Protein backbone atom coordinates (compact mmCIF):
# COMPACT_ATOMS: atom_id res chain seq x y z
CA UNK A 1 0.00 0.00 0.00
CA UNK A 2 1.40 3.41 -0.88
CA UNK A 3 2.26 5.94 1.80
CA UNK A 4 0.68 9.42 1.64
CA UNK A 5 2.31 12.30 3.46
CA UNK A 6 0.03 13.12 6.43
CA UNK A 7 -2.12 16.21 5.92
CA UNK A 8 -2.70 19.05 8.34
CA UNK A 9 -6.33 18.77 9.38
CA UNK A 10 -8.46 21.92 9.35
CA UNK A 11 -11.78 22.63 10.89
CA UNK A 12 -13.75 21.28 7.97
CA UNK A 13 -16.04 18.33 7.76
CA UNK A 14 -13.88 15.41 6.66
CA UNK A 15 -15.25 12.52 4.69
CA UNK A 16 -14.55 8.80 4.49
CA UNK A 17 -12.02 9.22 1.69
CA UNK A 18 -9.81 11.41 3.91
CA UNK A 19 -9.89 8.85 6.71
CA UNK A 20 -9.24 5.97 4.35
CA UNK A 21 -6.22 7.65 2.83
CA UNK A 22 -4.79 9.17 5.98
CA UNK A 23 -5.49 6.39 8.47
CA UNK A 24 -6.26 3.11 6.72
CA UNK A 25 -3.81 3.40 3.84
CA UNK A 26 -0.98 4.92 5.84
CA UNK A 27 -1.30 2.30 8.60
CA UNK A 28 -1.11 -0.39 5.93
CA UNK A 29 1.91 1.28 4.38
CA UNK A 30 3.67 1.23 7.75
CA UNK A 31 2.59 -2.32 8.57
CA UNK A 32 3.45 -3.82 5.16
CA UNK A 33 6.36 -1.83 3.74
CA UNK A 34 8.11 -2.69 0.48
CA UNK A 35 10.45 -5.65 0.95
CA UNK A 36 12.58 -7.72 -1.42
CA UNK A 37 14.77 -10.72 -0.62
CA UNK A 38 16.62 -13.61 -2.20
CA UNK A 39 17.83 -16.78 -0.53
CA UNK A 40 20.26 -18.87 -2.56
CA UNK A 41 20.28 -22.66 -2.67
CA UNK A 42 22.22 -23.29 -5.83
CA UNK A 43 23.80 -26.33 -7.46
CA UNK A 44 27.20 -24.73 -7.09
CA UNK A 45 28.80 -21.90 -5.15
CA UNK A 46 29.34 -18.46 -6.66
CA UNK A 47 32.85 -17.67 -7.76
CA UNK A 48 34.61 -14.68 -9.32
CA UNK A 49 38.04 -13.67 -10.59
CA UNK A 50 36.74 -10.29 -11.78
CA UNK A 51 38.74 -7.33 -10.51
CA UNK A 52 35.93 -4.93 -11.37
CA UNK A 53 32.60 -4.93 -9.59
CA UNK A 54 30.10 -7.34 -11.10
CA UNK A 55 26.76 -8.89 -10.21
CA UNK A 56 26.73 -12.37 -8.69
CA UNK A 57 23.82 -13.09 -11.01
CA UNK A 58 20.38 -11.69 -11.80
CA UNK A 59 18.81 -13.22 -8.68
CA UNK A 60 20.73 -10.77 -6.51
CA UNK A 61 19.16 -7.71 -8.14
CA UNK A 62 15.78 -6.26 -7.16
CA UNK A 63 13.49 -3.73 -8.77
CA UNK A 64 12.39 -1.97 -5.61
CA UNK A 65 9.51 0.51 -5.40
CA UNK A 66 9.94 2.79 -2.41
CA UNK A 67 7.41 5.13 -0.83
CA UNK A 68 10.37 7.33 0.04
CA UNK A 69 12.39 7.27 3.23
CA UNK A 70 14.95 4.85 4.62
CA UNK A 71 15.94 1.35 3.56
CA UNK A 72 17.55 -1.36 5.69
CA UNK A 73 19.83 -3.55 3.55
CA UNK A 74 21.30 -6.80 4.79
CA UNK A 75 23.33 -9.80 3.69
CA UNK A 76 23.81 -13.03 5.61
CA UNK A 77 26.53 -15.04 3.88
CA UNK A 78 29.86 -16.85 4.08
CA UNK A 79 32.70 -16.60 1.60
CA UNK A 80 36.38 -17.25 1.04
CA UNK A 81 38.90 -14.87 -0.52
CA UNK A 82 42.55 -15.93 -0.45
CA UNK A 83 43.59 -12.75 -2.29
CA UNK A 84 40.72 -10.86 -0.64
CA UNK A 85 37.68 -9.39 -2.29
CA UNK A 86 35.02 -6.78 -1.68
CA UNK A 87 31.23 -6.68 -1.54
CA UNK A 88 29.07 -3.64 -2.17
CA UNK A 89 25.49 -2.71 -3.02
CA UNK A 90 24.59 -0.85 -6.19
CA UNK A 91 21.54 1.44 -6.03
CA UNK A 92 20.70 2.31 -9.62
CA UNK A 93 24.13 3.47 -10.87
CA UNK A 94 25.81 4.31 -7.55
CA UNK A 95 27.46 1.88 -5.17
CA UNK A 96 27.28 2.64 -1.46
CA UNK A 97 31.10 2.84 -1.22
CA UNK A 98 31.09 4.90 -4.42
CA UNK A 99 34.75 4.17 -5.11
CA UNK A 100 36.33 1.50 -7.33
CA UNK A 101 38.79 0.60 -4.55
CA UNK A 102 36.22 0.41 -1.77
CA UNK A 103 33.30 -1.68 -0.65
CA UNK A 104 31.17 -2.26 2.41
CA UNK A 105 32.48 -5.70 3.39
CA UNK A 106 35.85 -7.35 2.83
CA UNK A 107 36.28 -11.02 1.96
CA UNK A 108 39.49 -11.71 3.74
CA UNK A 109 40.26 -15.34 4.43
CA UNK A 110 41.12 -18.60 2.74
CA UNK A 111 38.77 -20.17 5.28
CA UNK A 112 35.00 -19.88 4.98
CA UNK A 113 34.13 -16.82 7.02
CA UNK A 114 31.20 -14.57 7.70
CA UNK A 115 30.77 -11.71 5.21
CA UNK A 116 27.40 -10.48 6.47
CA UNK A 117 26.56 -6.81 6.64
CA UNK A 118 23.66 -4.56 7.69
CA UNK A 119 23.23 -0.86 7.12
CA UNK A 120 20.70 1.88 6.47
CA UNK A 121 20.40 3.85 3.27
CA UNK A 122 18.64 7.03 4.18
CA UNK A 123 16.37 9.60 2.62
CA UNK A 124 15.54 8.01 -0.73
CA UNK A 125 12.90 9.91 -2.68
CA UNK A 126 9.81 7.90 -3.62
CA UNK A 127 10.46 5.93 -6.77
CA UNK A 128 11.62 2.63 -8.24
CA UNK A 129 15.25 1.63 -7.79
CA UNK A 130 17.38 -1.25 -9.02
CA UNK A 131 19.25 -2.61 -5.99
CA UNK A 132 22.02 -5.13 -6.68
CA UNK A 133 24.60 -7.03 -4.64
CA UNK A 134 27.99 -6.83 -6.33
CA UNK A 135 31.48 -8.13 -5.66
CA UNK A 136 34.99 -8.22 -6.99
CA UNK A 137 38.30 -10.01 -6.55
CA UNK A 138 41.42 -8.12 -5.61
CA UNK A 139 43.97 -9.90 -7.75
CA UNK A 140 42.18 -11.71 -10.56
CA UNK A 141 44.98 -14.24 -10.46
CA UNK A 142 44.99 -17.85 -9.43
CA UNK A 143 42.64 -17.42 -6.48
CA UNK A 144 38.96 -16.59 -6.84
CA UNK A 145 36.48 -15.32 -4.30
CA UNK A 146 33.84 -17.92 -3.52
CA UNK A 147 30.49 -17.39 -1.84
CA UNK A 148 28.85 -20.46 -0.36
CA UNK A 149 25.39 -20.86 -1.91
CA UNK A 150 24.02 -24.16 -0.69
CA UNK A 151 25.40 -26.57 -3.27
CA UNK A 152 25.17 -29.46 -0.82
CA UNK A 153 28.82 -29.07 0.20
CA UNK A 154 29.39 -31.21 3.29
CA UNK A 155 29.81 -28.99 6.35
CA UNK A 156 29.37 -25.86 4.20
CA UNK A 157 25.78 -26.17 2.96
CA UNK A 158 24.83 -22.64 4.01
CA UNK A 159 22.22 -20.56 2.20
CA UNK A 160 23.05 -16.87 1.81
CA UNK A 161 20.27 -14.33 2.00
CA UNK A 162 20.16 -10.77 0.65
CA UNK A 163 17.28 -8.45 1.55
CA UNK A 164 16.07 -4.88 1.31
CA UNK A 165 13.21 -3.41 3.34
CA UNK A 166 11.76 0.04 3.73
CA UNK A 167 11.77 0.53 7.48
CA UNK A 168 10.30 3.40 9.42
Amino acid at each position, binding site marked *: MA*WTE*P*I*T*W*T*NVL*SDASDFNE*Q*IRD*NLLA*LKQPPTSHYEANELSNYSTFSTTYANLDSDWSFSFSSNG*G*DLLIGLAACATGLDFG*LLDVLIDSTR*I*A*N*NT*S*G*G*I*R*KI*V*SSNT*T*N*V*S*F*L*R*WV*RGLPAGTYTITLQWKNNSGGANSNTMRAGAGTVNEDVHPRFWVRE*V*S
Partner: protein
Amino acid sequence: MSWTHPRTWLPEKITADKLNQEIRDNFTALKDPQHDEYAPSYAAGNLISTSSTSWTTMTDFELSLTTEGGDVLIILNVDVDAAAYFDIEVNNSRKGGSDGTMGTSAAGPILLIWLLTEIEPQTLSIVGKWKVPSGTANILASTCPYFSAREIS
Protein backbone atom coordinates in the same frame (compact mmCIF):
# COMPACT_ATOMS: atom_id res chain seq x y z
CA MET B 1 8.22 15.13 14.78
CA SER B 2 7.60 13.91 18.32
CA TRP B 3 5.39 10.98 19.26
CA THR B 4 2.39 11.44 21.56
CA HIS B 5 0.87 8.44 23.27
CA PRO B 6 -2.38 7.75 21.39
CA ARG B 7 -5.49 9.00 23.09
CA THR B 8 -8.48 6.87 23.99
CA TRP B 9 -11.35 8.45 22.13
CA LEU B 10 -14.59 9.18 23.97
CA PRO B 11 -17.88 10.38 22.62
CA GLU B 12 -16.41 13.83 21.97
CA LYS B 13 -16.07 16.49 19.38
CA ILE B 14 -13.32 15.69 16.90
CA THR B 15 -11.28 18.79 16.28
CA ALA B 16 -8.53 19.57 13.85
CA ASP B 17 -6.04 19.91 16.69
CA LYS B 18 -6.79 16.39 17.91
CA LEU B 19 -6.55 14.92 14.43
CA ASN B 20 -3.27 16.71 13.78
CA GLN B 21 -1.71 15.41 16.98
CA GLU B 22 -3.12 11.88 16.81
CA ILE B 23 -2.85 11.26 13.10
CA ARG B 24 -0.56 13.75 11.35
CA ASP B 25 2.08 14.01 14.06
CA ASN B 26 2.07 10.39 15.19
CA PHE B 27 2.20 9.00 11.67
CA THR B 28 5.03 11.37 10.86
CA ALA B 29 6.87 10.25 14.00
CA LEU B 30 6.50 6.61 12.95
CA LYS B 31 7.56 7.24 9.38
CA ASP B 32 10.62 9.29 10.29
CA PRO B 33 11.87 8.18 13.72
CA GLN B 34 14.88 9.39 15.68
CA HIS B 35 18.11 8.23 14.04
CA ASP B 36 21.81 8.97 14.45
CA GLU B 37 24.71 7.44 12.59
CA TYR B 38 28.43 7.66 11.91
CA ALA B 39 29.10 6.64 8.32
CA PRO B 40 32.43 7.87 6.99
CA SER B 41 32.84 7.70 3.23
CA TYR B 42 35.40 5.49 1.52
CA ALA B 43 39.03 6.32 2.15
CA ALA B 44 42.20 4.36 1.54
CA GLY B 45 44.01 2.83 4.48
CA ASN B 46 42.85 2.66 8.07
CA LEU B 47 40.27 4.74 9.91
CA ILE B 48 41.28 4.24 13.55
CA SER B 49 43.76 2.14 15.46
CA THR B 50 44.15 0.73 18.96
CA SER B 51 46.72 -1.15 20.99
CA SER B 52 44.68 -0.91 24.18
CA THR B 53 44.06 -4.13 26.05
CA SER B 54 41.41 -2.42 28.16
CA TRP B 55 38.12 -1.06 26.83
CA THR B 56 38.50 2.21 24.96
CA THR B 57 36.20 4.33 22.82
CA MET B 58 36.34 3.85 19.08
CA THR B 59 37.18 7.40 18.02
CA ASP B 60 34.14 9.16 16.50
CA PHE B 61 31.91 6.12 17.03
CA GLU B 62 29.70 8.15 19.38
CA LEU B 63 26.00 8.71 18.86
CA SER B 64 23.30 10.70 20.62
CA LEU B 65 19.66 9.69 20.31
CA THR B 66 16.70 11.36 21.98
CA THR B 67 14.01 8.73 22.13
CA GLU B 68 10.31 9.15 22.83
CA GLY B 69 10.45 5.72 24.41
CA GLY B 70 10.34 2.22 22.95
CA ASP B 71 12.99 0.15 21.22
CA VAL B 72 16.29 1.20 19.66
CA LEU B 73 18.21 -0.80 17.03
CA ILE B 74 22.01 -0.39 17.11
CA ILE B 75 24.26 -1.54 14.25
CA LEU B 76 28.08 -1.65 14.24
CA ASN B 77 29.44 -2.83 10.88
CA VAL B 78 33.25 -2.64 10.35
CA ASP B 79 36.20 -4.63 9.02
CA VAL B 80 39.23 -5.04 11.31
CA ASP B 81 42.72 -6.19 10.37
CA ALA B 82 43.66 -8.13 13.51
CA ALA B 83 42.23 -9.80 16.60
CA ALA B 84 39.97 -7.44 18.55
CA TYR B 85 36.89 -7.33 20.76
CA PHE B 86 33.91 -5.00 20.35
CA ASP B 87 31.07 -3.78 22.50
CA ILE B 88 28.37 -1.12 22.84
CA GLU B 89 28.21 1.31 25.77
CA VAL B 90 24.87 2.99 26.48
CA ASN B 91 24.84 5.89 28.94
CA ASN B 92 28.24 4.80 30.30
CA SER B 93 27.13 1.21 30.79
CA ARG B 94 28.87 -1.36 28.59
CA LYS B 95 26.47 -4.07 27.46
CA GLY B 96 28.62 -7.15 26.98
CA GLY B 97 30.84 -9.38 29.08
CA SER B 98 34.45 -8.91 30.07
CA ASP B 99 35.38 -9.46 26.43
CA GLY B 100 32.44 -7.57 25.05
CA THR B 101 29.67 -8.67 22.71
CA MET B 102 31.66 -9.69 19.67
CA GLY B 103 35.24 -10.44 18.73
CA THR B 104 37.51 -11.91 16.13
CA SER B 105 40.73 -13.85 16.50
CA ALA B 106 42.08 -12.57 13.19
CA ALA B 107 41.39 -10.00 10.48
CA GLY B 108 37.76 -10.07 9.46
CA PRO B 109 34.31 -8.56 9.55
CA ILE B 110 32.45 -7.33 12.60
CA LEU B 111 28.66 -7.07 12.53
CA LEU B 112 27.33 -6.26 15.96
CA ILE B 113 23.55 -5.81 16.17
CA TRP B 114 21.91 -4.83 19.44
CA LEU B 115 18.23 -4.15 20.16
CA LEU B 116 17.55 -2.02 23.22
CA THR B 117 14.01 -2.71 24.38
CA GLU B 118 11.42 -0.77 26.36
CA ILE B 119 13.58 2.29 26.76
CA GLU B 120 12.06 5.19 28.70
CA PRO B 121 11.95 8.62 26.99
CA GLN B 122 15.46 10.07 27.35
CA THR B 123 18.59 11.06 25.50
CA LEU B 124 20.89 8.11 24.98
CA SER B 125 24.65 8.29 24.61
CA ILE B 126 25.68 5.27 22.49
CA VAL B 127 29.39 4.58 22.07
CA GLY B 128 31.36 1.90 20.24
CA LYS B 129 34.09 0.35 22.38
CA TRP B 130 36.97 -1.94 21.53
CA LYS B 131 40.17 -3.51 22.77
CA VAL B 132 42.79 -5.99 21.59
CA PRO B 133 44.18 -9.10 23.28
CA SER B 134 47.64 -7.95 22.20
CA GLY B 135 49.32 -6.05 19.39
CA THR B 136 47.50 -3.46 17.30
CA ALA B 137 44.22 -3.52 15.39
CA ASN B 138 42.98 -1.13 12.72
CA ILE B 139 39.48 -0.46 11.41
CA LEU B 140 39.61 -0.32 7.63
CA ALA B 141 38.47 2.93 6.07
CA SER B 142 38.12 1.29 2.65
CA THR B 143 35.01 -0.67 3.62
CA CYS B 144 32.94 2.30 4.80
CA PRO B 145 32.64 1.64 8.54
CA TYR B 146 29.11 2.13 9.82
CA PHE B 147 27.59 2.80 13.23
CA SER B 148 23.93 3.67 13.74
CA ALA B 149 21.18 3.92 16.34
CA ARG B 150 17.53 4.20 15.44
CA GLU B 151 14.24 4.23 17.27
CA ILE B 152 12.33 1.34 15.75
CA SER B 153 8.71 0.24 15.93
